[in-house]
């Protein structure tokens, strides 16, 4: 019987939650790397036992951990993320230029085909790649070298590269997203990049539809239809049908179109999930009711999913990397909160249960479908 492994990163360590295909009972392993911030843990699609974890603190910097046995044991691998050449500057909060400074790895995206190849999205925004299982890292500096780079500015959480989508049919094509620069695409394996933000409008910007500067929070896709992208922007839920060449808004009847995560059903590419948050000033669910919203129409028409979720006095947030789906049928949907709960649905969002309630604040959740 197949199973599911949840890889949970928190403010105070990592956890591995495992269940069989029924997804009724969960075994909890952890905390791993207790006391460290674990921004992300992710698994290789090519080798389910190969995991990578981003471990950091403000005191001792960045560590990268690797497991070759599904998370039972770990080995510290390379933690040197050196920008290519002279790093240069980008725009700071006050409009002045500020040197590019490495802070941490936000997101790890293993190659679809090679367990030793993994991409890292970092703050200050850059994309790194390792082809030796994480021992050494090289910047794909064509991204930062884009002529708009000096105009990129950090969002409130830092200037992070948080989304890395690898096209399943064309490994030369990747989409990344940076808060608050926007989305970018390469069609040549990462050598050159261009902004793909046409159709985004951000009232925070002097010119709402400028080429870069948009605070993209997350982009998701279904691998069976990789040219259709769904984006949760700072405000607005957006959709692209042409690999990001253009975007249109699909916020529709959401109670708020501000939020962080967005996910796509593994088997129904028009089924999309978001977690609306009241506003950019108040990062809490509207009316204190935690609701996942699901669209079965690729956006615009949304339904609230509430069964099993707190519907009063709930003031947690769900961060951008903290929602995931498994590949089973029916599709499992999972998310973690800043209040330390990890919620699971084994029926595509109709019903939810808290797998755990008292973890440290959850930074990321990945769902691995095991053979």
């Amino acid at each position: 019987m197949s199973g599911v492994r949840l890889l949970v990163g928190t403010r105070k360590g990592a956890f591995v939650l495992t269940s069989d295909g029924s997804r009724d009972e969960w075994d909890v392993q952890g905390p791993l790397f207790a006391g460290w911030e674990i921004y992300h843990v992710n698994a290789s699609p090519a080798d389910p036992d190969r995991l990578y974890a981003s471990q950091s603190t403000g005191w001792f910097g960045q560590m990268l951990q690797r497991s070759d046995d599904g998370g039972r044991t770990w080995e510290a691998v390379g933690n040197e993320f050196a920008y290519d050449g002279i790093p240069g500057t980008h725009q700071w909060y006050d409009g002045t230029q500020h040197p590019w400074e490495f802070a941490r790895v936000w997101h790890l995206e293993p190659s679809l085909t090679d367990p030793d190849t993994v991409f890292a999205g970092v703050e200050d925004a850059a994309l790194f790649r390792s082809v030796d299982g994480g021992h050494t890292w090289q910047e794909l500096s064509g991204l930062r070298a884009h002529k708009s780079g000096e105009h990129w500015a950090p969002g409130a959480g830092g200037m992070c590269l948080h989304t890395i989508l690898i096209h399943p049919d064309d490994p030369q094509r990747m989409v990344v997203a940076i808060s608050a620069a926007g989305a970018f695409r390469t069609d040549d394996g990462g050598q050159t990049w261009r902004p793909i933000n046409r159709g985004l409008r951000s009232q925070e910007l002097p010119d709402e539809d400028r080429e870069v500067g948009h605070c993209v929070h997350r982009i998701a896709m279904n691998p069976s239809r990789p040219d259709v992208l769904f984006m949760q922007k700072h405000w607005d839920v957006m959709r692209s049908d042409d690999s990001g060449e253009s975007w249109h808004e699909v916020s529709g009847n959401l109670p708020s179109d501000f939020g962080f995560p967005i996910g796509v059903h593994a088997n129904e590419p028009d089924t999309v999930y978001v977690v609306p948050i009241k506003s950019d000033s108040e990062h809490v669910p509207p009316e204190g009711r935690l609701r996942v919203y699901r669209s079965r129409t690729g956006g615009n028409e949304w339904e609230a999913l509430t069964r099993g979720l707190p519907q009063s006095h709930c003031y947690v947030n769900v961060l951008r990397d903290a929602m995931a789906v498994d590949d089973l049928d029916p599709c499992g949907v999972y998310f973690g909160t800043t209040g330390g709960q990890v919620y699971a649905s084994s029926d595509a969002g109709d019903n939810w249960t808290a797998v755990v309630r008292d973890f440290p604040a959850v930074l990321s959740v990945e769902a691995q479908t095991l053979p």
Partner: protein
Amino acid sequence: MIRVALPHHLRTLAGVDREVLLDLKEPPTQRTVLDALEVSYPVLRGTIRDHATAERRPFVRFFACGRDITLESADDPLPEEVASGAEPFRVVGAIAGG
């Protein structure tokens, strides 16, 4: 032998549960002690000093004989008590954060 006392998280990373002992060929300074520490425990590279600049990370401090020597030159000799092994060279994480 030079004794080095590491904070909890660095002991965990290095896989040691007490002080680290280093056999230095050169007179002990902050720099020679940390160089030797990173040779013996490569996993600590980048955690105390920046990889590229070798500068101390901002929230790390160094103590010897009850004295904060963080801002002294990295090439100043460490106190005789540290050189003789009577006292440890202490790497301390600043008390900050939650």
